[in-house]
């Protein structure tokens, strides 16, 4: 029998983790159950963080004051995925950078509610600066995926 010039070893890893979310993230996630998107504010630069954050990365201050937004936002950027990626949705899907209310930060979520029959035409249907609103799941658990997607405001 001939010896191959090299062998390959196949393997995989499945590991379980648990992440404590802390007071700010927990408050933000809990509000989603009530179909509310909250933000918290930096005492120094006054920027509103949506999603919430325990601290301002720039001013290095703790964020303590909360505001409630109306949930609507604008599309800051987007990309239309046409290829299947592991642990990601079935294509085509649109990942959007969405700025909620007057937030100084962004949320990453799906843009939906569009006609997906002609996938090539999806990029033309979305405009940067377009106003969007959340479409909520019936059963909410306190997770960003309680929002099915953001759809254009009619």
């Amino acid at each position: 029998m001939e010896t191959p010039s090299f062998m390959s070893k196949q393997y995989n890893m499945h590991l379980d983790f648990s992440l404590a979310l802390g007071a700010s993230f927990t408050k933000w996630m809990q509000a989603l159950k009530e179909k509310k998107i909250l933000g918290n504010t930096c005492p120094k630069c006054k920027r509103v963080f949506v999603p919430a954050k325990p601290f301002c990365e720039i001013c290095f201050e703790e964020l303590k004051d909360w505001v409630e937004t109306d949930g609507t936002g604008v599309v800051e950027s987007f990309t239309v995925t046409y290829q299947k990626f592991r642990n990601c949705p079935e294509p085509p899907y649109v990942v959007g950078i969405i700025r909620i209310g007057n937030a100084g930060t962004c949320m990453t979520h799906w843009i939906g509610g569009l006609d997906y029959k002609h996938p090539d035409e999806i990029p033309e249907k979305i405009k940067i600066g377009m106003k969007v609103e959340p479409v909520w799941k019936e059963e909410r658990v306190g997770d960003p995926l309680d929002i099915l997607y953001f759809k254009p405001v009619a």
Partner: protein
Amino acid sequence: MTRKVGIVSYALEGFQGEARMSSDELVFRAVNSALRKAGVGRDSIDAVAVSSVDAYDGITISNGLTAPAAGGYEKDATRIQGGGIGAILSAYASIQSGSAELAVVAGGDAVRYDDAAISNASYDVHFHRGSGITNIQSYGLVATSLLKQGVATEDDFARTAAKNYKAGTTNRHAHITSGYSYEDVSSSPMVAWPLRALEIAPVSKGSAALILASEKRAKELTRNPLWITGIAAGSNTYAGSWQDLLEMKGLRKAISNAYKSASIKNPIADIDFFELYTPASPLELAYYEPLGLCERGKASMLLKNGIRFSGREIEVNPSGGALCTNPGNCGGVYRAAIAMEYLEKHDHARRGFIQDSDINLGFMGETYHVMILEKETR
């Protein structure tokens, strides 16, 4: 007082196809070859810096295997995740501080993995990971903004890719040497609009090693040392605005610190070539302005006209860049070695600029590294 730090040797191993050996064997080969070229043995080394990402090695502490493979036994061995220039910076600091005279920087890529799945797992699990984002979508999001800002067109993305592929045909170390044309790129499948398959870097396997030395040791070991005259890093926000991300302040800070340290006033006049980490072609266009190569919004015009100074062309990614060769662990070390080769081969070239970042895992909270390599002035 700052000490001069030089690079006296380099070696590259592989990159053309699949790896036929493990990361530590690849690292050993590159380091052994770089040490031989420098005419020194493992005994002469004081410090070792290995560049790796555990997930890319499919192990939870990749340097356990690769630090000894880089000559680290009984030495001051450090592992840096997040780009090879970060590892170069660590070795540079060891020499600057006087704790080392001679240092090895190395990295190797051998394991086959799902690049996009590892990138998805680099995002925070509470807000981002579930949103179907990977490094590729993050490049797509930046590319969409470049279109909106009028910095570049979809056509420019394809032309930039073709320019890199053409350059790659002359790089004997490159992974992709097929020289894809503009037509090939612009007809390749759409992956994450506006990004097409051939506008996104492959994943490459190979290893790279450098030998850094203090001024005294460098002059003993070679007649032609290359000096690191600027090296700097800068990070961006993770939870910032989209504008913050596009502004790339971390990159701007790193560039201005490196330019200042190397006394560069006008990069077009003072730098002969740029090797940038652009794992998607639109990023090259995004970096032109922060590098000082063009004014804001003029990247498209710069691509069309080329960059010229006093009748000579200033090349960006003469190696073909990441679209031609993209090893996740040793990328920055590879680019530094490629830059050394360029300086060796081109008499007219005196100074090269090398850029690196951890955006192989995707944008958000990214850290940039830059370095300026320079020939001895005679």
